[in-house]
């Protein structure tokens, strides 16, 4: 039943092994491809880039690494960068501007190897107006300094685009300017750690003499005064976030983990000052220093960031930054946020529609898969309405805008309450609950101690009361989650599983229901499976079909064209196309028609819109089926999830034509829902959660964005982790999808590690409290006990999660 062109593909790949690859990009070269001296290129674009680089003495690009160039035929955007002439746009991109010297920062996702760094950092040779360029490889950014009098932003972007490094420009890069403030908060934590480390180290050093007893008492006192001096920035700069958040939660009448932390800090500080100033003791300032320092390091560890991944993309990073707008009788490139109601804009082939509107001219083949999940393009003719977020697959169309970009249908969905509702973002509930009971317990013990000693000795009563508060300080409790789950995040990232924060790990351990989106998750939208069914085709028939299909812009025709390789094009006469139905023409003296069943058979009933019939000389030869193939090993993934007692469900925006296939794939108790709008998906997740389920939603894009956000854990499958991914909790690289269930196993065991850490904490607290309630907590006991407990828990957490990960990946290797 299958007639594919596998034979010719094989022939081609054998040929390329013996033949040459493109000098620029490494793609196989075919007969007749351009050459330059001895060098072969796969396309004219690659040759042009080579000529440009070699003319400027940048040949060394090719010697840094072999065949590293970016294929020009693939990355050609032919974009009109006219909108970059707008001074407001430059203002958004520039981070520094003085006397004509401008510094801009651009996202260049194509950066992938050391030769990219080399070329981009030598780009000043291509145009003297560019002063310098610095690449940040991990963030895939280039910061360029240029002279405004010699070159402008548009020329720079065009130059980059010409050599295959076109920067990513989307609406978000225009709107967003929070990058700078984000970096500032990151730096603040580093500064705080620096100060805490400085103070902690020095206080510890200056406390030695008093523990060893080698220095006279009046000297010790002077050293203690220096310690007080050092502890002020320690508490009020490095520790201020904890004090502020404790104050805020007191104000909101919520008892969290921050309150015992703040109580501990303040008690340590005040009692130390009292002891030193009243000459009754030496204080516990070194414990305070260690405490704050370890807390901050833990916080830093928790904020493990994936430099090139962003978890909070929204529709703006998906929309184009500019469109061609009709002004007078000419087209000018305009930034999308300047497009207004009533404007006429032009959308090119493969362009994303940024605003709602209706078609003025041209035929729309709009792929709404990003909005609805429906994989089949919709055919629209003049005066019909199109919605923002669709992708035009045919030729260019002209639209009259009815709603601005930020008021369209898709945009409205994104602005649903759920996206602005703070309660939808979950915090670490577990640790806060523990914190609550812990605080109550400690307050009771300390009050009990106070009451017990009050009648015996008031000095001891006061001392032991504060000692209980000091020693019970939940340092270990506060460190356990950052270090253990922080390390889990780091380890998982080696497997291509990127978690947003430690709270996600915590919620993962509780997931009992996994909901999959179909399009792009279960099925692979990138490759379209074309299957032929019918009378076997001769070589001539193939050429004829190829010729006819290549005349049409219809997405299904394009898919047929992509399926043929090395088929000669023939001459075509009498070409006709009936929009959305089919095409026909005379090729090699034969009458050929290609189209939907209603077009070919002249019936009203449509068998299936994803079927194309072929008719040559009035005889129906066969049909092509189009399907997004189901990802390989999907059934094993679902099976493994079921083994872990997780219920799996399916949500699909598509119609139910794949119901049978899906029924075979999913376990029998799964819910399979089709024809789901984005709102339906969101409501479904909501209803599951109301029933008490902890839901993980696995999806791919915008149309399930609401559901992703609504779920407890939103997972996005990323085809390519440098590119687009919407708001979610976990970004899963497609390569690790097959081993996806391991995530649950690993995380569940990590939870036991965490419980182990709590057992440690309890152990230390019992010892500490034993001393404290008796009024025997000397500074030296505190100085040993507190750092020892912190360090041992940190080491235990890091080592055991790392071991667990190793053990776990070996085990899974055996299984696979």
């Amino acid at each position, binding site marked *: 039943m299958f007639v594919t062109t596998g034979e010719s593909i094989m022939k081609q790949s054998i040929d390329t092994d013996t033949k040459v690859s493109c000098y620029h990009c490494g793609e196989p070269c075919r007969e007749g491809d351009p050459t330059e001296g001895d060098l072969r290129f796969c396309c004219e674009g690659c040759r042009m880039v080579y000529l440009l680089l070699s003319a*400027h*003495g940048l040949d*060394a690009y090719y010697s*840094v690494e072999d065949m590293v160039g970016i294929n020009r035929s693939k990355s050609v955007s032919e974009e009109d960068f006219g909108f970059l002439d707008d001074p407001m746009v430059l203002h958004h991109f520039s981070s520094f501007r003085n006397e004509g*010297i401008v510094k801009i920062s651009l996202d260049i996702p194509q950066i992938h190897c*050391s030769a990219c*760094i*080399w070329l981009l*950092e030598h780009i*000043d*040779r291509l145009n*003297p107006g560019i*002063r*310098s360029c*610095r*690449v*940040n*490889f*991990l*963030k895939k950014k280039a910061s360029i*300094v240029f002279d405004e009098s010699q070159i402008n932003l548009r020329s720079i972007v065009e130059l980059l685009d010409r050599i295959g490094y076109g920067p990513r420009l989307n609406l978000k890069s225009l709107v967003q300017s929070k990058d700078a403030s984000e*970096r500032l908060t990151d*730096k603040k934590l*580093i*500064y705080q750690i*620096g*100060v805490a480390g*400085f103070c902690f*180290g*020095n206080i510890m050093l*200056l406390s030695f003499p008093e523990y060893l007893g080698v*220095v*006279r008492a009046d*000297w010790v006192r*002077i*050293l203690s005064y*220096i310690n007080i001096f050092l502890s002020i920035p320690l508490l009020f700069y490095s520790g201020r976030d904890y004090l502020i958040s404790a104050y805020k939660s007191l104000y909101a009448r919520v008892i969290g983990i921050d309150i015992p932390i703040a109580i501990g800090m303040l008690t340590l500080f005040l009692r130390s000052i009292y002891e030193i100033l009243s000459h009754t003791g030496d204080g516990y300032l070194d414990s305070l220093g260690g405490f704050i320092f370890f807390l901050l390091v833990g916080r830093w560890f928790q904020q493990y960031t994936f430099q090139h991944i962003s978890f909070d993309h929204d529709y703006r990073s998906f929309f184009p930054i500019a469109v061609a707008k009709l002004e007078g009788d000419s087209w000018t490139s305009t930034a999308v946020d300047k497009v207004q109601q009533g404007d006429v804009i032009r959308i090119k082939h493969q362009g994303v529609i940024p605003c709602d509107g209706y078609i003025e001219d041209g035929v729309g083949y709009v792929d709404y898969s990003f909005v609805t999940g429906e994989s089949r393009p919709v055919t629209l003719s003049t005066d019909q309405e199109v919605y923002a977020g669709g992708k035009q697959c045919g030729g260019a169309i002209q639209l009259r805008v009815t709603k601005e970009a930020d008021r369209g249908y898709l945009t409205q969905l994104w602005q649903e309450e759920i996206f602005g509702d703070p309660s939808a973002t979950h915090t670490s509930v577990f640790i806060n609950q523990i914190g609550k009971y812990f605080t109550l317990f400690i307050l009771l013990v300390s009050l009990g101690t106070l009451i017990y000693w009050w009648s015996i000795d008031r000095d001891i009563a006061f001392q032991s009361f504060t000692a209980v508060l000091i020693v019970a300080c939940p340092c270990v409790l506060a460190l356990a989650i950052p270090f253990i789950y922080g390390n889990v995040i780091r380890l998982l990232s080696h497997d291509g599983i990127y978690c947003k924060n430690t709270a996600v790990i915590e919620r993962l351990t509780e997931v009992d229901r996994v909901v999959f989106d179909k399009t792009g998750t279960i099925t692979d939208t990138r490759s379209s499976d074309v299957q032929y069914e019918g009378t076997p085709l001769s070589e001539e028939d193939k050429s004829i079909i190829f010729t006819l299909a290549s005349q049409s812009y219809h997405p299904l025709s394009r898919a047929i064209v992509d399926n043929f390789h090395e088929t000669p094009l023939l001459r075509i006469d009498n070409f006709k196309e009936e929009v959305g139905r089919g095409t026909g023409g005379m090729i090699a003296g034969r009458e050929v028609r290609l189209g939907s069943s209603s077009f070919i058979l002249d019936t009203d009933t449509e068998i299936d819109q994803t079927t194309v019939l072929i008719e040559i000389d009035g005889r129906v030869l066969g049909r092509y089926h189009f399907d997004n193939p189901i990802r390989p090993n999907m059934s094993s993934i679902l099976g493994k999830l079921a083994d872990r007692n997780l219920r799996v469900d399916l949500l699909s925006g598509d119609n139910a034509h794949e119901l049978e296939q899906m029924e075979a794939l999913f376990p029998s108790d799964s819910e399979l829902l089709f024809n789901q709008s984005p709102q339906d998906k969101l409501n479904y997740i909501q209803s599951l959660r109301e029933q008490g389920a902890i839901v993980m939603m696995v999806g791919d894009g915008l149309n399930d964005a609401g559901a992703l956000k609504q779920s407890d854990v939103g997972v996005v499958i990323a085809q390519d982790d440098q590119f687009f991914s919407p708001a979610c909790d976990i970004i899963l690289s497609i390569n690790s999808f097959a081993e996806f269930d391991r995530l649950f196993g690993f995380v569940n065991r990590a939870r036991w590690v965490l419980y182990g850490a709590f057992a440690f904490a309890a152990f230390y607290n019992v010892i500490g409290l034993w001393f404290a309630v008796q009024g025997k907590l000397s500074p030296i006991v505190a100085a040993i006990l507190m750092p020892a407990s912190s360090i041992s828990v940190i080491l235990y957490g890091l080592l055991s999660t790392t071991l667990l990960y190793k053990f776990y990946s070996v085990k899974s290797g055996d299984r696979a």
Partner: protein
Amino acid sequence: MKIILLLILVSLFIAGGFLVAFFWAVGTGQYEDDYTPSVRMLFDDEVVNDHTTSESHIST
């Protein structure tokens, strides 16, 4: 013993200097990219063709 006090003050002063240096290093973004410089330093100084002047290398 007075000399100890002096030494402590001097050492605190020096340590403070390092703290300031650390602030400066963070502030100028030296910890923001810890990968690219390791690649950059391995690039060979290539032979410059006649028509490209080495002046254009010198940047601000």
